[in-house]
């Protein structure tokens, strides 16, 4: 299992970007020269990519620490040479390549960037440098899967906001979004999705080597192109020319050959025209923010609520048990409970979700929703244990003595006398944790659960705007958390009397 391509964006960043855009603030600094002039002046073509995207795109070279390898590395170097400058790699999270490009973090984004209308609306695309197929894989022996049409209503995995994602959305299948390239194939093997649709380069490396899987077929094609900031048409044109030159000279296909990704279809890159690019964009459709999206948002909010409430219902009794074991249990059990708390509190919940869902998939086959609830529940139990421990310790010692003096067994005394009073002390902390959990539940998107934040990022990219999806997402979170705060405050006031 690899944690590598963590292609997720935080909830806040796009929202803040949207606010910045709204305020009309220029997002980038006061650079005087733009585009080609800047590249020439600095003598560098800074290209943004994610080294965690996996082979064969652009990854760190294991033989030369700090160096990069991949067909895109060679492509960037060839293009820079054509422009008479040096290529400089800039690391950037894949899902934020376009916002970072807009901010001016680098000159171009060059990293398996598919030509989709959602992206074309925001940035300039060069002519494509690679044509790929969308490859459908299913389990060996599952012969019922013959085409996309045979998968109507079934769960099919892919990367969110990819070309394959768009195609699945239109095919009447239930598209399951992943953030890495390996995880969908793990889930396919485990039977958690019926099929996986991905770019053939990815399928070749990560899907086809798995003995339990088979290729159903290629169901469409798409193009990788380089993204350039709007307004820098001169840079785009220069790159187009450079691309044309290395395509015609055969250098481009030589690179592909070195990486084992060449095909006859790549010959089309040689005499590609701008008109063809426009045709590609016209043939795909653009989603709009409408009532249908609102329904999807509400559904996703329901998932967020279900995951949060489920996890909390698990975390509370488990946390109570852990805290009481630490305080009153035998020494060995107390140590065990302490270890649990430190382990689950001291490691990222993201890692725990990965291990639970992918790492233990061989022994514990959980569906995504159960894994999400269990994973967050186990993690939050560690926090709840500490909140209750503080609560129990705040109850005066005499309360326990008084209960014991009446002949109560320890368990009864804890249940009837100590815990109700400890709960009163712990309540603000528990409320706080629940609200935190409501938002932390967005982490479960890494195990392919579409909750509110994931829904927002998917929709935002689809409709090319963060503003409305971001505001709607924030509103729904508030609608869920605010009444809870109010309820907790009323409960506190009621308990205050005793």
């Amino acid at each position, binding site marked *: 299992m690899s944690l590598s391509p963590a292609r997720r964006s935080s909830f806040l960043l796009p929202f803040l970007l949207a606010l910045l855009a709204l305020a009309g603030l220029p997002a980038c600094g006061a650079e005087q020269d733009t585009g080609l002039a800047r590249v020439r002046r600095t003598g560098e073509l800074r290209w943004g990519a994610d080294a965690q995207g996996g082979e064969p795109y652009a990854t760190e070279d294991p033989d030369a620490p700090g160096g990069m390898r991949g067909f895109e590395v060679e492509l960037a170097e060839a293009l820079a040479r054509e422009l008479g400058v040096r290529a400089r790699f800039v690391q950037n999270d894949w899902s934020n390549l376009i916002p970072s490009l807009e901010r001016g973090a680098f000159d171009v984004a060059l990293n398996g960037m598919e030509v989709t209308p959602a992206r074309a609306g925001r940035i300039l695309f060069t002519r494509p440098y690679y044509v790929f197929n969308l490859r459908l894989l299913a389990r060996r022996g599952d012969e019922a899967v013959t085409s996309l049409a045979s998968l109507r209503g079934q769960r099919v995995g892919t990367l969110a906001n990819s070309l394959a994602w768009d195609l699945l959305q239109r095919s009447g299948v239930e598209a399951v979004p992943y953030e890495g390239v390996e995880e969908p194939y793990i889930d396919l093997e485990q039977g958690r999705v019926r099929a996986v649709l991905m770019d053939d380069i990815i399928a070749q490396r990560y899907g086809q080597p798995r003995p339990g899987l088979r290729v159903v077929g290629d169901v469409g094609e798409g193009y990788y192109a380089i993204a350039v900031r709007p307004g820098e048409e001169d840079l785009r044109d220069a790159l187009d020319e450079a691309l044309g030159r290395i395509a015609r000279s055969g250098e481009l296909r030589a690179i592909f050959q070195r990486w084992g990704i060449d095909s006859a279809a790549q010959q089309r890159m040689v005499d590609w025209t701008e008109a063809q690019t426009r045709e590609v964009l016209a043939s795909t459709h653009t989603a709009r923010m409408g009532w249908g999206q609102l329904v999807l948002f509400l559904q996703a909010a329901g998932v967020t609520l279900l995951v949060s409430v489920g996890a909390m219902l698990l975390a509370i009794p488990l946390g109570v048990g852990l805290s009481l074991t630490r305080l009153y249990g035998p020494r060995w059990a107390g140590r065990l409970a302490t270890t649990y708390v430190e382990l689950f509190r001291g490691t990222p919940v993201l890692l725990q979700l990965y291990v639970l869902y992918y790492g233990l998939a061989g022994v514990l086959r959980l569906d995504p929703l159960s894994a999400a609830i269990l994973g967050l529940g186990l993690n939050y139990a560690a926090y709840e244990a500490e909140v209750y421990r503080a609560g129990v310790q705040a109850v005066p010692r005499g309360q326990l003595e008084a209960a014991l003096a*009446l002949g109560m067994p320890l368990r009864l005394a804890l249940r009837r006398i100590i815990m109700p*009073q400890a709960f009163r002390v712990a309540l603000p902390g528990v409320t706080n944790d629940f609200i935190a959990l409501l938002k932390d539940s967005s982490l479960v998107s890494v195990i392919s659960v579409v909750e509110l934040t994931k829904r927002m990022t998917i929709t935002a990219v689809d409709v090319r705007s963060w503003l409305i999806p971001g505001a709607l997402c924030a509103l729904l979170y508030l609608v869920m958390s605010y009444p809870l705060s109010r309820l907790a405050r009323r409960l506190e006031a009621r308990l205050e009397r*005793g």
Partner: protein
Amino acid sequence: MIEVEKLSKRYEGRLVLDGIDAVFAPGEVTALVGPSGGGKSTLLRCLNGLEPFDAGVVRVGSETLAPGDVRAQGEQVRRIRRRVGFVFQQWHLFAHRTALGNVTEAPMHVKGVGRREAVERGRALLEKVGLSHREDAYPSELSGGEQQRVAIARALAMEPEVLLMDEPTSALDPERVGALIDLLEQLRSEGLTLVAVTHEMRFARELAARVLVLYGGRIIEEGPPARVLASPHHERTRAFLGLGRGAALRSLGA
């Protein structure tokens, strides 16, 4: 009722109880007196297993309490505690329960008495301690004297044969002491065995049949209050009572 034999306890290397032998007879009121640190409260707490001890034995009827870990003696200790009630110096009423709730809690959940019956008996006990009108009040809403009377009712609700009281008068206004003595006198007349740690000589004089003087973890003197308090034999008792060689009246009416 309670027999204590060769009871010893060390605490942080110091011998706080040093071979105590004592018998508390049914229906008898005993006052434990002596200077602070003499071992009175520790002895009281050993009598119902709130405090472990290192040697000796405590017998309550047919039940015995052995030295060592109290929790390990689980059911045995609980049977003793059900027969021996305890009223703490600071009462420790259950903060999240009303006065009536405090009184009904143990009968319902330890003895398994039905709610209706527990409430009925609880009300009767609150009436007995003069708090019928306060049954719905929470501990934080009660005065010190009221809290103490709820604590007594709470202990009595388990129908103990013995009631242990730690410094029952120390947190009371002087004018309340008389009312407490009247209440305990009534309980005594109903056959309850009482053992109280006290600094209040009036309490010992008016209520107790017997006074035990503890000093350095030993019983240095015992007898009827009239004799022990008026003409103590032991020099330490005289010093404690402020009778010896012009010692100050430091311990009286504390």
